[in-house]
C-alpha cells in the first residue's frame, strides 16, 4: 500500500505539469499579450511596456537562448513558460488585473465563504440523497420508486438560475423566512446561508438521488444480499452492514472527486446571495477577463483534484479488500 501511494504520488506531478502546460497554452499563448488591457484606457506606450515587463510578456515563450548567451546557461529558463511554472509552484500568482489585490490572498479570502456555502450544501445533498436512495432501493419497482425517479428528473431539468431567482423572491422576500442577501463570517452569518444551501441541496438532489439509486439497486440485487437475508439478518443491518459498505466504493469516488470543486464555490448562488466566495470571484474575473485570477483558480483546483484522485484510490483500498495496491 505504501509503495502504491508513493507511485501515485510520483504520477501526480506529471498531471500537474500537464495542467500547467494547458493553462500556459490557454492563458499565455492563445490568449496572447494582455499588457495593453492591463494598462487601461488612457495608457501611454511606456505604461504598456511597463506592464509587459511586469507580466513577463517581453520574454520568449519557452527557451530564452538570448539570455543564456549573455547571462549563462541557467538564464535559458528565463522564459514565460518557466516563470509560469515557477509562479504556480510557489503559489505566487501576482496581482489581479482590476483590483490589484494579491491573487493568492483573494483565493484565501474567498475559500472560507465558499466552503461555508458548498460544504453544507454538499453534505446536505449527499446525506439526503443516500438516505432517499437507500429507502428507494427497498421499495424498488413500486409506484413510489417510479414517482421519485420522475421527481428527480424533473428537478434535474430545471435551470438553476431560474430556481435561484424564484427562491430568493418567494422565500426570502415574499414569505420573509430568510434574509434576502448578506454575509457574516462565523456563526453570526449562519442565517444567511440557510436559503442558498437549501436551494443548492434541492437543485443537486435530483441528479444525486438518481446516481445513488442506481448504485443501491446494483448492490441490493447482488447475491450476497440474498445470502445475508438467508442467514436471517434483519433489514436495517443488511442495509447498513452489507449494502452500504459495498456501495461506499462508488459513493467515495463521487464524494472525493467532488471535494476539490467545492473550492470553486457556486457561481450563481454566491452572486445572488452576496456570499463573497470564489464562485463570485470567478464570475467577476470572467467578466473582467482577469486572467491572473482565472489562471490561479484553474491551477489550484486542478491540483486539489489530482490530490483528490489520489485520496480516492487510497480510500478504495481502505474500503474494498479486493483492491490490491501494487
Amino acid at each position, binding site marked *: 500500500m505504501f509503495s502504491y501511494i508513493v507511485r501515485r504520488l510520483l504520477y501526480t506531478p506529471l498531471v500537474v505539469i500537464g495542467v500547467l502546460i494547458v493553462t500556459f497554452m490557454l492563458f499565455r499563448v492563445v490568449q496572447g499579450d494582455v499588457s*495593453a*488591457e492591463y*494598462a*487601461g*484606457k*488612457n*495608457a*501611454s506606450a*511606456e*505604461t504598456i511596456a*511597463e*506592464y509587459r515587463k*511586469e507580466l513577463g510578456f517581453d520574454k520568449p515563450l519557452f527557451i530564452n537562448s538570448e539570455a543564456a548567451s549573455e547571462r549563462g546557461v541557467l538564464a535559458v529558463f528565463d522564459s514565460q513558460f518557466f516563470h509560469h511554472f515557477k509562479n504556480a509552484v510557489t503559489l505566487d500568482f501576482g*496581482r489581479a488585473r*482590476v*483590483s*490589484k*489585490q*494579491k491573487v493568492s490572498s*483573494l483565493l484565501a*479570502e*474567498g475559500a472560507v*465563504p465558499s466552503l461555508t456555502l458548498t460544504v453544507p450544501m454538499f453534505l446536505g445533498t449527499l446525506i439526503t440523497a443516500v438516505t432517499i436512495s437507500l429507502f428507494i432501493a427497498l421499495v424498488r419497482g413500486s409506484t413510489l420508486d417510479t414517482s421519485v425517479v420522475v421527481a428527480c428528473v424533473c428537478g434535474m431539468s430545471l435551470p438553476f438560475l431560474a430556481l435561484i*431567482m424564484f427562491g*430568493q*423572491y418567494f422565500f*426570502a*422576500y415574499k414569505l420573509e423566512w430568510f434574509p*434576502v*442577501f*448578506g*454575509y457574516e*463570517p462565523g456563526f453570526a452569518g449562519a442565517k444567511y446561508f440557510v436559503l442558498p444551501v437549501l436551494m443548492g441541496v434541492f437543485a443537486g438532489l435530483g441528479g444525486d438521488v438518481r446516481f445513488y439509486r442506481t448504485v443501491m439497486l446494483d448492490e441490493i440485487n447482488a447475491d450476497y444480499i440474498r445470502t445475508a437475508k438467508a442467514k436471517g439478518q434483519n433489514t436495517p443491518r443488511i442495509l447498513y452492514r452489507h449494502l452500504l459498505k459495498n456501495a461506499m466504493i462508488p459513493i467515495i469516488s463521487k464524494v472525493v472527486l467532488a471535494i476539490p470543486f467545492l473550492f470553486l464555490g457556486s457561481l450563481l448562488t454566491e*452572486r*445572488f*446571495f*452576496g*456570499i*463573497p*466566495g470564489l464562485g*463570485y*470571484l470567478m464570475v*467577476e474575473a470572467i*467578466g*473582467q*477577463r482577469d486572467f491572473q485570477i482565472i489562471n490561479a483558480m484553474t491551477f489550484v483546483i486542478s491540483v486539489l483534484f489530482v490530490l483528490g484522485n489520489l485520496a480516492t484510490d487510497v480510500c478504495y483500498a481502505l474500503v474494498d479488500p479486493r483492491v490490491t495496491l501494487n
Partner: protein
Amino acid sequence: MRSRLMFAWPIAVLMLVSGSMLGCSEESGGQNGSGGDATLTTRGALSSKVRGMDPMDIGDTTSSSVASNIFDCLYQYHYLKRPYELIPSVAESMPTVSEDGLTYTITLRDDVYFQDDECFTETEGKGRKVVANDFIYSWKRIANLKNVSKNWWIFDGRIKGFNEFRKYTEGVTDKKDVDYDRPVEGLVAVDDRTLQITLTKPWPQVVYMMSHLPTAVVPREAVEHYGDEFINHPVGTGPYMLTDWRRGSKIVFERNPNYREEFYPSEGSEGDKEAGRLDDAGKRLPLIDRVELLIIEEDQPRWLKFVQGDLDIGGIPKDNFDTAVTPSRGLTGDLREKGIVLEIYEDPATFWYGFNMEEPLLGNNLPLRQALNLAIDRDEYLKLFLNDRGMPARGVLPPMLAGYDPDVDSPFTVYDPELARKKVKEAEAIHGGPIPPIVLTMGSTDSVARQTGQWFTRAYQQVGITLEVDYMDWPSAQEKVKTKSAQMYAMGWVADIPDAENFMQLFYGPNASPGTNNMNYQNDEADALYEKLSVMEESPERVEVIRQMQKKVIDDLPCVFTLHRKAYLLRYDWLRNYKPHVFGYGLAKYRNIDAELRQQRVGR
C-alpha cells in the same frame, strides 16, 4: 483636462452609475445603532465591487466615492450651492493665481491631521499634520511610471518638469529605488503650509482637478509601511476611517475622531431651507457615526433589500422601474406609504455611438453618417432601455454645462426614416455602390447589450443599411477602439467637473486614439476653437466659442448622439440632508438620520 471615459456603452453606464456612484457616497440611510447607543448608522449598497482604495490607482466611480470617505483633496464642492461651486478642503482658501495664469499658490489649513495608524511609528500611531510636501509626494506617485497609475493623464504635459520626472522613473529598475525627493520645477513646497504649482501653459480647470480624488493626499509613511498592500490599508485625512472591508460583501466606515473642524453649510440654494436641508447648519461634520455599504451586484437582491428597508437609499434598477414609478413619473402608492422618496436629477452625461472617422466608408461619407443618425428613434430608445430616464441627445454637451443648448441647430439628429432613406441613396452614390454591412462593436455581452444591438440592427434595416453587431467584453472593445480597428462602437462620457472643455476635448484632433478622441475626429477649425477655449477663463465669450465648436462637430457628425441621462433614485424619508450631487464625492459626512422615524417605519 479629461474626465472619465465611461463604460462600454450607455445602458451599462446607467445601471452602474445609478447604483454605484449614487450607491456609495449617496446611498446612505439611517439606522439607529443597537439599544440606546447613540451610534448613527447609515446603510447603502454598491452595485459593483470596490477595486482598491489607493487614490493613485482609482479610476472608477465606485472606488472613488467609497475612498472619498477616507481621503481629502485640496478642494471640494459646496454641498448645497447650485451651480456647483468649489470651496477649500485641505486648502485654507482658493488659490492665488499669477498674472500669466501659470503659477498657483495654495495655502494649507493648519489643523489637518492624518488618521491614526500604526504606520506612524515615530508618533506611536498618532496621525501627523499634513504638510505641502505630502501633496507633492502623492502626485509624484502618480507620475512614477513604475506604479503604472491610470491617472497620469491628469498631469501629463501640464506641470513644469513633471514629465521629466516621469522620464527619470522609467530608467529606474525597481520602483522602490525611485527618489521621491528629486525636485520637480513646477511643484514646490515653499514652506509646510504653502504649495506652489507652476504650469506649462494656462489651464484654468486645474482647480477642478485638485478636487479630483486621485489627487488626494496620502501619507508617505503608510505607503512605505504597507507597500503594495496600501490599497487595503488606506490612511487619509477624511471624515471616516475604514474599519471593515470584506471584498465582495461589505465595507464599514466609522467616524474619524481627529477629523478637522468642519461644519455643515449654513447657506444653500433655493428650496434647501424648505426641504429641511439647512436644519443642521453649523453642526460639526460628520453627522453620522458609521457608514455601512453592502456590495450587491445583482439587481434583484439589491432591490429587494431596499424595499425591505434594509438600505436607506437605492437606485432603481431598470427593470423595477414599473414597480416603482408611475407613468407620470411619480412614485407608486405602496412605496410612498413606506416613506420612500423619489429623487430625479440631471446627470451631465452624453452617450453616443461613435464612428471611426479614419475608416473610409464612414469617414468619407457625410450623407451616410447623417442617415445613421436619422434612422434612430431616440425617444423609443429611451423608452425601451431607460424607461425614459433621460432626454434625446442632439449635440455634444449635456445639460448643466455652460454652452448646453436645448435648441441646438442639428437637423440630422432627429428621427426621420424618410430622409434617412434618401440620405442612404446619396451615400450609395458617393460610395459607388450599395453600402456594405457596418460592424458595430459592443463592449458587453449581457442581455441589455444584446437587446440594444438587436434594436440598432432593426432600426438600420428599415432604412436599408445592414448592421452587424460584434459583442465582446469591455477590455477587448476598448482595445479595438484604441487601435482604431472598430468601425462603429458604443461610448459615453460623464463630466466629473462642471466645465464644457471636458467634453470638447473629445473632439480635438491631437487627442485621437489612443487618446480620448476615439472617433479620431479631425477638423482644423474645431481644433483652433478648442485651443482657444481651453485657456480661456469662464466668460460669455468662452460659451460662444464652445458653441461654435459644437456646431462644427454636429455638422460633421462623427457619431450618433443618443441621449443625456437623468438619474432616478429612491431613498427613505428618514435619510436627512439628502441632495443629489453629480460631481462631488465624500458626501456621507453631510447626511443625517432620523432614527425615530426609521424605528417607526420599519421597526429597526
